């Protein structure tokens, strides 16, 4: 059986049966993406490595709880990764939090050693999501980034920006809706 030909859901079904190679295959597909997200949130390589390992161990333990009818595998996986990284961030001192950055301010390194096909997909997804983000009004993009990458709650964002809480809530909702519209025609998270 060639694991590379299997869908994410098929690999998960094998993981439920304690198939270790299936987990390795999922890691090969998404490990660097999970690590990159963790590193963007935590800015700490050691902590990002630990978070990445925790995420895939969680996949190993909780594979049976994934319900294909309730969203894509990648939504589930990145949901776990984001929760874990934000939890870690909130445990740490907020002094390291870089609230004033935007995605554009951050170090942009190319993938270390991707296969050519992977590199093309990666570059394409990265470019499309960033392009979609840039379509958002600045104030909506900012609250989304402060929440998703900075780990701030709505109330904390309102305080940071000196804006009413209701304004922040509205910007967050409108921003996500607009982002969805901007992504819909050109971006689908790949289901292998």
């Amino acid at each position, binding site marked *: 059986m060639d694991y590379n030909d299997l869908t994410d859901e098929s690999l998960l079904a094998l993981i439920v049966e304690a198939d270790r190679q299936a987990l390795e295959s999922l890691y090969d597909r998404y490990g660097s993406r999970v690590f990159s997200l963790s590193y963007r949130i935590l800015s700490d390589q050691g902590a990002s490595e630990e978070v990445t390992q925790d995420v895939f161990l969680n996949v*190993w333990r909780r594979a049976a709880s994934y319900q294909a009818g309730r969203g894509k595998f990648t939504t589930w996986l990145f949901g776990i990764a984001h929760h874990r990284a934000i939890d870690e961030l909130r445990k740490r001192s907020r002094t390291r939090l870089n609230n004033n950055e935007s995605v554009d301010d951050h170090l942009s390194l190319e993938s270390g050693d991707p296969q050519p096909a992977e590199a093309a997909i990666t570059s394409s997804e990265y470019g499309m999501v960033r392009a979609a983000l840039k379509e958002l009004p600045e104030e909506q993009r900012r609250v989304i980034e402060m929440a998703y990458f900075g780990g701030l709650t709505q109330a904390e964002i309102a305080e940071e920006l000196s804006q009413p809480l209701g304004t922040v809530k509205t910007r*967050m909702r409108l921003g996500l809706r607009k982002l969805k519209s901007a992504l819909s025609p050109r971006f689908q998270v790949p289901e292998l």
Partner: protein
Amino acid sequence: MSASDSADQITSDDLAAYALNALDEERRALVEARLGESETLRLELEEFEETAASLAFAVPEITPPDSLKEGLLRRLDEESRSGAATEPVLAAVSAASAGNAEADASSRAGASDSDVGAETRGWIASPAVAWSVSGALTAALVLLVATSTVMFIRLNDRVTDLSARLDREAESVQTVSQSVREMEDEVDHAMSSAQEVSQVEEATNALEQKLRDQRWLQYALSTGTWTSPSWFSGAALQEASPQGMLVAHNSDGRALLMVDGLPPPPAGKVYQVWLFKGDEPSPGSTFTVDRHGYAVVELQFDGETETYSGAQVTMEPAGGSEAPTGDPVLIQSSP
């Protein structure tokens, strides 16, 4: 609808914030409680969550070291081993518990039967037998008095011994107190040493982090044609000696600036890079540094890199400025 009802109402705003992990714990718990009750809420949340998950792709992809996967597989092995070891142990404990329970139950049943039998036999004893019992009780009383006397003498001796021991131990307590004071001094000394070790460890961690970033930077440099590094140094009158290094890509206008030794900016402030054409500065990226004063910043040149004559870093209000408002903290010292 009362104010309380309104506060308990889950809105689209709540769901969007939930998908971004931006709710406080109380509100989050309320959303989770309501999700189980409403299919409509759940479907709306799924849409927000899917959009939020796409943000994971807005980050440049970095390949983690091979050791990360090796570590994951190692943890998987450990978990599998501990899981395999736990089940038989649990089974054995469970079986043992079941066995003990049976044994306890049968033992209790046996004791009960025996006690009931004894009581039954006592209640049917005849008067003749009762006299014999009375004589035996008298003998037992005499024996009890004799035994008590002996015990009293022994107890008295014991109290005397204990008093002597207490006197001796009072002296020991003084000696021990002295030792404790000496140990406290030693602990203070050890704590002081531990703090020093902790500081050394912190510095070592910072150096390791820099080394890792340097390796990534080296990798970045190896992926294309980059200019020779330009070096930055701190402006005068700064306590620390901040430094910087800038390399620019020869073809696509990208540049990387690595800084070290800058103090973390105060709240509401950021550092900002300025790229100069002649005497005219143009605003570059804003950034902050980690607690060790270290950061790597991506810059984008507008047009040919050769047209730029220099660069500086200043401290600016959060969000950056259109023109420098602060004094330079880093100045490009070589072209």
